[in-house]
């Protein structure tokens, strides 16, 4: 279990692959095929440090596949992935996570058998010394408004609380890049607003880069610096939210005329 030391951070000026150092993530010609179907088609994607990018697109556009390629759950058929100045294409998931990539799954997956504090302990012990566990846990639970649930078994939490706990666990890893797959699916209006505020705060205060897959356009509008529209496995449009909203083509592929 690689425990990266948060205090020491050296970002190389320009690394040998010529990738601009301020870019936290870059993919080149990333491709994934399942039998006959091309889920991800030669995607060149870049993300700056601390940027909050939303990934939208009709169902089956390859959003989840793209995320799984980044986390290493899926191996690409072709192309490379550069993260934090290094080529991580071949790395298994647990080593990528060790370098600061963390993931919030589409289906909320917390350790339902363990208490909230125990849940947090699993990621925390990767990055922090044991004597700091209690302080760090209190800090995260306060920030994610879960303090009273310290000793409750995660399985008994509400859907919204579980989502917040899972994001909290991802944050406990002190990531530089966080990938979130539909974090507000099935949440109430206030809970969605809380999550939006939280994500914005993580991007701005903690300087963490975020890629968020979400269908709720209003939610995207409130939080996204830029938006990438995926369709048929490739990037269809990319730019600030106002541009994307105004673009008639985007409406067309969403409303399902032939594309």
């Amino acid at each position: 279990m690689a425990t990266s030391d948060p205090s020491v951070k050296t970002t190389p000026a320009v690394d040998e692959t010529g990738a601009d150092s301020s870019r936290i993530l870059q993919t080149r010609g990333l491709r994934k095929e399942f039998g006959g179907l091309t889920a991800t088609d030669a995607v060149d994607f870049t993300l700056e440090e601390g940027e909050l990018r939303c990934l939208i697109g009709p169902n089956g556009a390859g959003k989840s596949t793209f995320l799984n390629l980044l986390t290493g759950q899926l191996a690409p058929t072709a192309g490379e992935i550069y993260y934090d100045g290094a080529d991580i294409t071949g790395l298994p998931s647990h080593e990528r996570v060790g370098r600061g990539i963390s993931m919030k799954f589409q289906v909320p997956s917390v350790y339902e058998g363990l208490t909230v504090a125990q849940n947090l302990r699993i990621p925390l012990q990767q990055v922090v010394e044991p004597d700091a566990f209690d302080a760090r846990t209190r800090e995260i639970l306060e920030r994610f408004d879960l303090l009273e649930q310290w000793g409750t078994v995660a399985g008994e939490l509400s859907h919204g609380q579980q989502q917040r706990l899972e994001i909290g666990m991802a944050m406990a890893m002190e990531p530089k890049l966080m990938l979130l797959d539909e974090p507000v699916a099935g949440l109430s209006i206030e809970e969605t607003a809380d999550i939006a505020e939280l994500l914005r705060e993580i991007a701005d205060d903690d300087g963490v880069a975020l890629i968020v897959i979400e269908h709720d356009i209003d939610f995207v509008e409130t939080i996204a610096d830029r938006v990438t529209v995926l369709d048929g496995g490739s990037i269809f449009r990319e730019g600030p939210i106002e541009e994307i909203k105004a673009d008639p083509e985007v409406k067309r592929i969403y409303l399902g005329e032939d594309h």
Partner: protein
Amino acid sequence: MAGAGLLNFGFEFVEIFAFIVLATVGLAVIFGMMGIINLAHGEFILVGAYATTFAFAAGAPLPLAMLTGVVLTAVYGLVLERLIIRHLYGRLLDSMVVTWGISLVMIQLTRIVFGNTAPGIGIPFGQLPIVDGPVYYLVLAVVAVGVLGGLYALFMWTDFGIRARATMQDEATARSMGVDTDRMYMSTFAVGSGLAGLAGALYAPVMTITPEYGTGFLIEAFVAVVVGGASVLVGTVLASGLLGTVNAAVTNVAGTFMGQVAMLIAAIVAIRLMPDGITGLLADWRENRGEGQ
């Protein structure tokens, strides 16, 4: 290999192939389809063997005695399903431990009630000319293939089969489409038990009947189901073929014992190379070649 040697190997293979298929087919239904790891499978076979033996000793002709064996085991399976197995659906590991308890109880009860031996039945139909092995083994092979064909027809083409498979794959949806899932579980389990009883009945004349009679079938059956993989019937045939070949080849060279050891090692390697079994592998090949989708 000389002509006779080849014939011997062929006969040996037929003998072991029939044994594995018949030992496995009942378990394939119960474990493969219903997700119940039935460690008492050997003792279901035992019920079939004892029922056949005592029916035969009471004067019934052999085929009728075997039929009683099958029917009695199916009824026995039904009773057990309603009493205990019903609570184990979806609890894979618990089903293994509970059926293991049932197996311990059944072996010891058989010993207490029936003592250590049961009257023997001679092997019917004389013997083959060149190979000098009993004709009965060929009969067993034919029955084995017949049973597989019958099961395939039952589960693929009949209305019962489709509803049973639907229940096993997704009980909730099946129930929502009006399938009486409880009855499906009961009847599928009864079919599985009946098949185990059939294996016991068919091998009653060949092997000495003792309370530990069933354990001789257990490992071959489990290994074949696991090596066979997801699709129950095709998997059983392929696994029995693979394991049968290995067993027959080594038995011919180094005796039945090394044949058994070789087969088990082949099974370990097969489970390792094909974690989802042969049929799992076939499904992946089809998928990668783009045919599936």
